């Protein structure tokens, strides 16, 4: 064991006014390389599964919406699919198109948010500012359609709560036309830059066996070549009614994950355009009235921006669920850190964790320990600095 000179920083606890969301990772390193990773979650645990047992069926929709702020439609979508699977009902056709439009708009805004954060961790602050600037019209559009920028309250059991009026559709089309050009520019800029390619290629590689062992889903799995997408495997809402394709890549490193996410945004634009063509100018029911939820159990899922979101409900005919089990996609994606980080250097840790796109800013609470002495070395701000310094070194070489 080498005896290098190391700095010891006084640790700031998981809860601190400067941090966004509390989380904890402990990385044990030997010199520059990582040897072990430990994940401790639960700082944001709010007891939602227990709370859900005391709310009515319609009130649970609002409760699960507040599990996450970024992918806030994914949980009501999966929950409504669950109850509709339990009852065995189908929803009206206009409601299917509206559900898909909201789901795909959310995918665009979530991936653009990720792009900004990844740019920030690498030291490309221009990418950060531009990606979040392109995201603003999407949030304004949500405010026009549903009344709020986050937590849209659009879903109910049996359909949707609000209609998309005909006078809003030209605004949606205008926004889509603008964002298509901007996304294509971002993809071209990412792929053409030699510094980014040298920085991200073969970093944080996940093999197909790793994906199978941890049960990962979403862009993390598709970037490694595992072809799994709930929208195509078990079609629901309007996805079987429109033309679109699943994006996969081969290598499984962080560059592939970035390309998969940006290309999915372009596919989302295609899906929304076709859905708008199908509902413009036509009338239709937007929801069926559901009076009772009978006894039984149901499972429903939805392809959130980060992967497959899974809900299980057991009901005994009363007003509230007996058991509500929720699995967010980050639950299976974040443990892949164990497979992708071991053997990598400390300066790559920030971007590898960001490549998984955890649904909480858990990267704010990372601590790096020396494996031999178990002494604290760096905290997360320093890891971001190390990552930016590595980018500078590569830029000077090229």
């Amino acid at each position, binding site marked *: 064991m080498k005896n290098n000179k190391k700095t010891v920083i006084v640790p700031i606890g998981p809860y601190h006014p400067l941090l966004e969301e509390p989380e904890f990772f402990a990385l044990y390193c030997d010199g520059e390389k990582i040897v072990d990773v430990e994940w401790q979650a639960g700082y944001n645990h709010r007891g939602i599964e227990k709370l859900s047992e005391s*709310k*009515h069926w*319609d*009130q649970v929709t*609002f*409760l699960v919406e*507040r599990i996450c702020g970024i992918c806030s439609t994914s949980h009501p979508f999966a929950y409504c699919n669950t109850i509709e699977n339990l009852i065995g009902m189908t929803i009206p056709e206009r409601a299917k198109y509206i559900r898909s439009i909201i789901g795909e708009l959310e995918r665009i805004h979530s991936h653009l948010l990720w792009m900004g954060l990844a740019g920030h961790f690498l030291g490309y602050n221009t990418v950060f500012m*531009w990606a979040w*600037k392109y995201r*603003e019209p999407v949030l304004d559009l949500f*405010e*026009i*359609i*549903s*009344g*709020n920028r986050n*937590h849209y*309250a659009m879903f109910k059991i049996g359909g949707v*709560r*609000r209609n998309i009026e005909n006078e809003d559709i030209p605004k949606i089309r205008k926004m889509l036309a603008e964002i298509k050009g*901007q996304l294509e*520019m971002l993809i*071209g*800029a990412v792929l*053409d*830059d*030699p*510094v980014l390619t040298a920085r991200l290629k073969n970093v944080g590689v996940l093999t197909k066996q790793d994906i199978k062992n941890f049960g990962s889903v979403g862009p993390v799995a598709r970037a490694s070549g595992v072809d799994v997408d709930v929208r195509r495997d078990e079609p629901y809402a309007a996805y079987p009614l429109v033309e679109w394709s699943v994006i996969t890549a081969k290598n499984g490193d962080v560059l592939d994950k970035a390309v998969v996410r940006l290309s999915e945004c372009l596919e989302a634009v295609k899906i929304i355009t076709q859905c708008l063509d199908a509902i413009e100018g036509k009338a239709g029911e937007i929801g069926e009235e559901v009076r009772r939820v009978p006894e039984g159990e149901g499972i429903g899922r939805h392809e959130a921006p980060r992967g497959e979101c899974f809900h299980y409900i057991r009901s005994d005919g009363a007003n509230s669920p007996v058991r509500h089990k929720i699995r967010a996609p980050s639950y299976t994606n974040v443990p892949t850190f164990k497979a992708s980080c071991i053997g990598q250097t400390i300066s790559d840790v920030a971007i590898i964790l960001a490549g998984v796109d955890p649904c909480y800013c858990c990267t704010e609470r990372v601590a790096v320990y020396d494996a031999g002495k178990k002494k604290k070395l760096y905290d997360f701000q320093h890891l971001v600095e190390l990552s930016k310094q590595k980018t500078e070194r590569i*830029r000077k070489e*090229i």
Partner: protein
Amino acid sequence: MKKPKIRELKEAVKGIFSRPYTTKFPYQPHTPPPRYRGKPEYYEEGCVGCGACFQVCSANAIDMIDNTEKGNPIRTLIQHPSKCIFCRECERNCITGEGIKLTQRFDIAYVDEEDVLSSVKHKLITCLYCGTVIGTEKHLRWVLKRIGNLGFAQPVLLSQLMEELQVKTEYEEKGVPPIQRTDMLKVVCPKCRRIAFISDEKKEK
């Protein structure tokens, strides 16, 4: 970028010369879009005091307080915007559709909560004997208007109709125990009406 291409340079130039994306609130007023979900408000003409909003509120932000002291029973409904999650369940389940609605007010920061509370008060009808709450006067009259002449079959609704028409009855409107059969037609709660129908304890003078 090592060698920025024309498309990135074009975007950069556009970014320098366009105005910032943020609005200038609070220096200029900001109108949200028409279907924005803002603070809920009670409207006294439309509200009948049924309490449906209190039962369906997802965040338990509405309080329903029944004050049944003798002579002046009043029901108060108070909505706390600090607990509200703006889900529109109250507006969707309001039985008249005009009782509580979400406005477009978004600036509801307060120092004193009285400034932002929204509340409404209604007169209650209580049982002559035991004093339990039957319903608010406006709610019963609303039901009577909706069911038309079927309302003649229910003594409480009938009494409301007679009050509206300002017809005086020959019964003494006082609850004098013991409960007897004729009390079935006074303004009593279902439990006391059941006792009146079954027991009929008329005391011999």
